[in-house]
């Protein structure tokens, strides 16, 4: 699973990537092509590197950082050129320029990193020999042509050209043949360094990504998580960066929540507008951020590694494909059940299943879903408005209306009984009083009928 496959997940991963200040298009492509990590060793190593970058970004002078960022902006995707070099097809002037440009750039960046002991975090192979091949006059400038010093005969021809401009076209033809020989020779010499050249290019992308992730972690107040080994995940003061920004723009504050889940189903109930969907979005986002090595939006976190992450939410795209919202949802949840039968570590986050159908059948579907998934070795977090018998599931409830305002924190409760606050919330929204009053009367009549 590559980052580009999940970037449009409705959990808000796209926002995090858009907020990442990458300097080169190549680094962005490299990041999007990166595979989701599922090994503890790999994830731990990536956070070790990121910690180095945070120390680095936090300690260096702004002018120094700007120099580094400016250098990284110059990184070009020259993988086609590297491929040609690997196949020993003679590089043309533009390709030779690209190789020289990369060699000089990576040497400069390597020096900047070494000055701050960051060369342990990302190793950039030295390309001095490559520079020497492409810079016979030792100018140390990232420009290139087939220099006079490569060949005496070429040098003589060019002197002739300047003396006799009228013969230039003829002399250029002669020179072209010699130049092609030089290019072929240079390609042969560079071929010995093709691995180092490729590694240097990738290392520059890694530095770019490392600095960008570190700056994002510092800027958004993200944390680096512990890796949990018992399948359970815990977050303290977890927040959704995108929702937080949207709220702050409206002069409001995001209330962070504490939450944990394990390999026992977790059921979240609570009033409308209680932030249940945002909790699921954030949990999904955090899981992806963790397995792609980003900072985590919470003050503290301990996260279990998963092989599959499945987030089921009212899916607009399926509706566009012509499926009804109910059909789309059923198919998504069906995929979760199928995945739960595999021997893989699965995290499923399901937002209000069967919400679009009648409450009688809806309740039955959700109750049965819980029974199907509960025995599986998987992590399930599900929100619902239906009254469900939780069985072995853990129940969390949004604290809800508390002294006139919404309290979004989650409390553990004994059963899954859903709160009946819809009318109060509707009233607080200033909805037409005739409607709300009538609804209250309806409720009272129906409860009287029941008691009779």
């Amino acid at each position, binding site marked *: 699973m590559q980052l580009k496959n999940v970037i449009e997940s409705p959990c808000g991963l796209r926002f995090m990537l858009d907020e990442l200040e990458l300097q080169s*298009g190549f680094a962005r492509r490299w990041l999007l092509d990166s595979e989701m990590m599922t090994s503890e060793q790999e994830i731990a190593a990536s956070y070790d590197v990121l910690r180095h970058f945070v120390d680095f970004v936090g300690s260096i002078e702004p002018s120094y950082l700007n120099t580094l960022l400016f250098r990284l902006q110059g990184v*070009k995707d020259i993988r086609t050129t590297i491929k040609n070099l690997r196949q020993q097809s003679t590089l*043309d*002037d*533009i390709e030779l*320029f*690209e190789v020289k*440009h990369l060699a000089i750039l990576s040497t400069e960046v390597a020096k900047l990193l070494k000055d701050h002991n960051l060369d342990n975090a990302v190793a950039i192979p030295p390309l001095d020999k490559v520079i020497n091949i492409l810079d016979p006059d030792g100018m140390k400038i*990232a*420009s*290139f*042509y087939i220099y006079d010093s490569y060949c005496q005969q070429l040098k003589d021809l*060019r002197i002739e*050209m*300047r003396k006799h*401009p009228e013969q*230039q*076209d003829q002399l*250029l033809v002669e*020179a072209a043949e010699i130049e092609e020989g030089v290019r072929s020779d240079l390609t042969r010499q560079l071929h010995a360094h093709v691995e180092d050249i490729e590694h240097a290019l990738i290392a520059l992308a890694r530095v770019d990504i490392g600095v960008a992730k570190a700056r994002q972690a510092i800027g958004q107040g993200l944390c680096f998580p512990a890796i949990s080994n018992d399948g359970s995940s815990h977050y303290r003061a977890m927040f959704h960066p995108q929702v937080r920004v949207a709220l702050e723009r409206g002069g409001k504050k995001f209330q962070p929540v504490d939450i944990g889940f394990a390999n026992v189903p977790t059921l979240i109930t609570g009033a409308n507008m209680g932030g249940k969907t945002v909790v699921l979005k954030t949990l999904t986002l955090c899981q992806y951020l963790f397995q792609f090595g980003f900072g985590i939006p919470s003050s503290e976190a301990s996260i279990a590694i998963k092989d599959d992450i499945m987030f089921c939410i009212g899916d607009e795209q399926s509706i566009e494909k012509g499926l009804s919202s109910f059909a789309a949802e059923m198919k998504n949840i069906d995929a979760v059940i199928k995945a739960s039968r595999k021997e893989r570590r699965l995290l499923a986050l399901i937002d209000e299943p069967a919400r679009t159908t009648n409450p009688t059948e809806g309740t039955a579907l959700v109750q049965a879903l819980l029974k199907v998934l509960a025995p599986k070795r998987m992590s399930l977090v599900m929100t619902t408005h239906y009254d469900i018998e939780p069985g072995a599931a853990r129940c969390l409830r949004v604290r809800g209306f508390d002294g006139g305002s919404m309290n979004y924190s989650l409390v553990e409760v004994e059963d899954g009984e859903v709160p009946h606050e819809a009318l109060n919330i509707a009233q607080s929204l200033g909805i037409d009083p005739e409607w709300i009053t009538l609804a209250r009367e309806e409720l009272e009549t129906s409860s009287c009928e029941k008691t009779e």
Partner: protein
Amino acid sequence: MPFINEILKYDSLSIVGLQKNTGKTECLKYVLARLPLEQKKVAVTSIGIDGETTDQVTRTQKPEIVLREGMYFGTSEAHYRQRRLVSELIDVSDESTSLGRVVTARALTQGKILLSGPSSTQGLRRWMRDTRRHGIDLAIVDGALSRLSLASPAVSQSMILATGAAYSINMSQLVQRTAFVVDLINIGVTSERNIGLLDPLEGGLWWIDTDGELHEMEAVTSLSQQVQFHGMERCATIYVAGALVDSFLEKVRKNKALKQVELVVRDFTRVFVTQQQLKMFEKAGGRLRVLHKSHLVAVTVNPTSPAGYVLDSSALCDRLSQAINLPVYDLLKN
């Protein structure tokens, strides 16, 4: 040497032809041959129709430009490979054209090169910015003035306009039509505040109310018949990000609520209105303004039409110069 010293005051110049065969290339050659390279580092590129190597109208080969030793140039990868001079690459941009990426190099000998630079306005701006980073003092753009060209030469500080018998063989008409284009080039620049608000907008129709608040209009283009001005009583400025045409100008003029409106376009190349409509619009109290303006340094004429008809060069220069209040040169004659 007319106007060379004037050019040196600016850091960028575009040479724009009103029509094929109005002597734009002659003008470029004239300028390139006379610039004092010992004083200024000069770079040159072209924004013709993307990928054009032969003249679209006359099917003649697009001329190669002769560069002097020490000049910088921007061209496509394909044309760089066909260069007939020794040159040193200094930059390969991410800017892609149908002939490959745009590269920048320095001529180490004199020689010939086909120029085919950035094909979008954004790309041209980036190229000009990059040349400054390489220490270039003057960037010259060989600019086509055509609806077909996506890149606008108006991003340069200064401009030379090439006109001639190819545009019209009727001298009065030629003078009148050229003078109108000169009027368009000289359209005033809108306020700094408006530039800040409007420059980032890529397309569409927008308006600014009297409090300086920006709103989007419902119609997508000014060509649309469904342009409505509902709720725009407090409109101070209308911005047309695309082409400005007669029908739109007329609708604005006839709307009573928009009597004193300032109409803003990106630059003069976006104005496709007739002289008559523009006059009526201005008479009714409206103003036309641009976001970007180039300073017109000179106008050159080619009195010979492609069919061989020749106008009287000195009469043409005199009459045009009087009409536009600027020096006019016939470079072939001088």
